[in-house]
């Protein structure tokens, strides 16, 4: 009896194994998107699965960006990494350094025989995810950039007729706003280091670190303790004293200060769009980041934030074929136009941008084009192609700590930035040692 059962089970298993010719290959996709963006991901996977019968993309939500990345790393160490992993931009260096753990996208596309031209993608976006030779390592997925959100009603009330373009104009406007109904905050920002160090440097064509901000090698040395950054931090310190500028924390938890009407000028991600649209009860818009007019060549171009899709290593060739097909599917112009409009994230290809523009969509929704205009403002330079620094999460914490000390009046701008540079360099050396064998 038992024997018969065993025999039956074995037969069933071998029958199941004997039919791989038509078996669907499952491709695991781990991501960190919630709410409306999660719907976008599910729809993309469903559409892809319906479009062919060989592969099935299975999206799984794994928590916040750091959680997803940690889950992926833990899964890799345990030997069952997903095929595709969404990794936020600050994890780029860690992923890139993991030779063997990841499969470079350009290589996978070539091996799978998929049509792939890295020039079709917006260079302001792909620069972040490419080697110095321009080989794309991961596929950009959801990208955004820093923009300046504006409460138009508040500006009008304070008698400011034009949206400020330069930093001195922003300071001037913030003083007026502070005197006219916004005593606790003339202007502010989220992501303090992203806005005030990383984007500031790129936008003014100043290096954040040597070796093209780390894109050309991990032996990069920080160098953002120079004139421009010092001047900017000094301005913030001075304005913090009477709350013309008011610090809003390291991450984006302070963004509510804009939508509630407290801070009428607020610099943060263009991805804040959905929140503003549903929560702000005043007339709003956004504009390009301000710049210092005396800086030569400013404004340059901005860099991106957001995440890209990494392909994990050690999978079978036929699985990579499926992933490659899926990436071609994602890069399709119409699909990108749709994702751009529904999520507010940037389109990743030049064709999708051109198509959205031609359709006149930006006339009604100019705030969706602002980050694109910033990214494509000028041809990216060594200083504005992107950043690739190891231990970026920790680095940002260290830089934030120093900026916090400066804004609290405990350190001068020079002391704070010098300390941010030297502490950061120590962390970069540590990272370099862990990745060079």
């Amino acid at each position: 009896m038992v024997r018969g059962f065993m025999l039956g089970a074995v037969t069933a298993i071998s029958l199941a194994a004997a039919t791989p010719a038509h078996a669907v290959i499952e491709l695991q996709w781990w991501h960190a998107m919630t709410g409306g963006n999660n719907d976008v991901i599910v729809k993309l996977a469903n559409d892809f699965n319906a479009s062919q019968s060989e592969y099935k993309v299975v999206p799984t939500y794994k928590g916040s960006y750091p959680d997803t990345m940690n889950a992926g790393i833990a899964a890799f160490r345990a030997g069952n990494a997903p095929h595709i992993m969404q990794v936020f931009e600050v994890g780029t260096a860690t992923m890139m350094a993991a030779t063997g753990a990841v499969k470079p996208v350009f290589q996978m596309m070539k091996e799978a025989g998929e049509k792939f031209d890295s020039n079709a993608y917006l260079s302001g976006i792909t620069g972040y995810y490419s080697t110095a030779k321009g080989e794309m390592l991961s596929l950009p997925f959801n990208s955004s950039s820093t923009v300046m959100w504006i409460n138009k009603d508040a500006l009008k009330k304070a008698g400011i007729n034009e949206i400020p373009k330069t930093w001195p104009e922003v300071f001037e406007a913030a003083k007026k706003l502070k005197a006219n109904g916004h005593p606790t905050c003339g202007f502010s920002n989220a992501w303090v280091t992203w806005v005030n160090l990383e984007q500031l440097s790129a936008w003014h064509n100043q290096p954040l670190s040597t070796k093209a901000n780390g894109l050309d090698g991990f032996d990069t040395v920080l160098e953002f303790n120079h004139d421009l950054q010092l001047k900017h931090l000094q301005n913030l310190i001075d304005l913090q004293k009477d709350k013309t500028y008011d610090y809003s924390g390291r991450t984006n938890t302070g963004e509510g200060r804009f939508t509630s009407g407290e801070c009428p000028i607020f610099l943060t991600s263009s991805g804040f769009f959905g929140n503003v649209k549903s929560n702000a009860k005043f007339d709003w818009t956004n504009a390009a980041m301000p710049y210092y007019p005396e800086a030569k060549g400013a404004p340059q171009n901005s860099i991106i934030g957001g995440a890209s899709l990494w392909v994990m290593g050690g999978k079978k060739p036929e699985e990579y074929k499926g992933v490659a097909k899926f990436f071609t599917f994602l890069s399709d112009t119409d699909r990108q136009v749709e994702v751009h409009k529904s999520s507010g994230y940037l389109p990743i290809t030049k064709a999708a941008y051109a198509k959205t523009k031609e359709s006149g969509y930006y006339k009604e929704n100019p705030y969706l084009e602002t980050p694109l205009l910033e990214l494509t403002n000028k041809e990216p330079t060594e200083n504005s192609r992107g950043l690739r620094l190891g231990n970026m999460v920790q680095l940002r914490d260290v830089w934030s700590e120093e900026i916090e000390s400066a804004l609290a009046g405990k350190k001068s701008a020079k002391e704070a930035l010098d300390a941010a540079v030297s502490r950061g360099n120590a962390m970069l050396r540590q990272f370099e040692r862990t990745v060079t064998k």
Partner: protein
Amino acid sequence: MEKRALFGHKFLPYWLLVPQLIITLVFFYWPASQAVWQSFLLEDAFGLSTRFVGFENYRALLSDPSYFHTIVTTIVFSGSVAILSLSCALLLATQADKQLAGAGIYRTLLIWPYAVAPAVAGVLWAFMFQPSLGIVARGLRDYLGIDWNPLLNGNHAMILVVMAATWKQISYNFLFFLAGLQAIPRSVTEAAAIDGARPMRRFWTITFPLLSPTTFFLLIVNIVYAFFDTLGLIDAMTGGGPAKATETLVFRVYADGKLGGDLGGSAAQSVILMIIVIALTAIQFRYVEKKVTY
């Protein structure tokens, strides 16, 4: 007639201990030894390259002045939380112990905060004290003229996390204190009252000494709580900031290891933390326990 039960079997006691020993080995000694081993390695996040570096992680840690700052922060934080939560709970327990109408309701209400998850409690407190929108922060600014700003002011941030951590722990302490108080025979305090001792004197000379075993137990539990279980609160409220003002040892382990991927450095910190806690517990049992009357 022999009344004592005899167990002739030589190995029986060991057999009976085995389940407990296995659990201790698997869940304590094994991970602890792994942490010690890991602290001697330099490894990337993916585990692709591992190098034995001896005591280098420790050297790097101990030559970092901010690590000592973290130790001081932890002492200030844990001490404040333990003292505040013990004294508040004792005060509440003595009040709830009185024969009041509806004492049962007070007791239930006082126990509730313990059921709130740390992250939820953290978010609630962070909301109330958010400098620009928080209801308490607004009250402080508008009525008392205090420019409350835990985002930049380290002292404010410290006060905030101490308050939240204390609030979380009061319920637990309250439960034990109340049970301890109710175990004290009424006749003792009544006799003292007849002798003319006033309530305060009765409390300090009779009740408090009789509560000392409970207090001692709670002191250890509270310090362990402040050291380890406040991670979620701190993460949700301040993230260790501003400028490391609220970074405790265990938060730093989490930040460097989980968020930063520096496994070796994080493991070295865990080992040091383990040594500190072992030392602390030993000191408590060696010296503080002498003052305890069971």
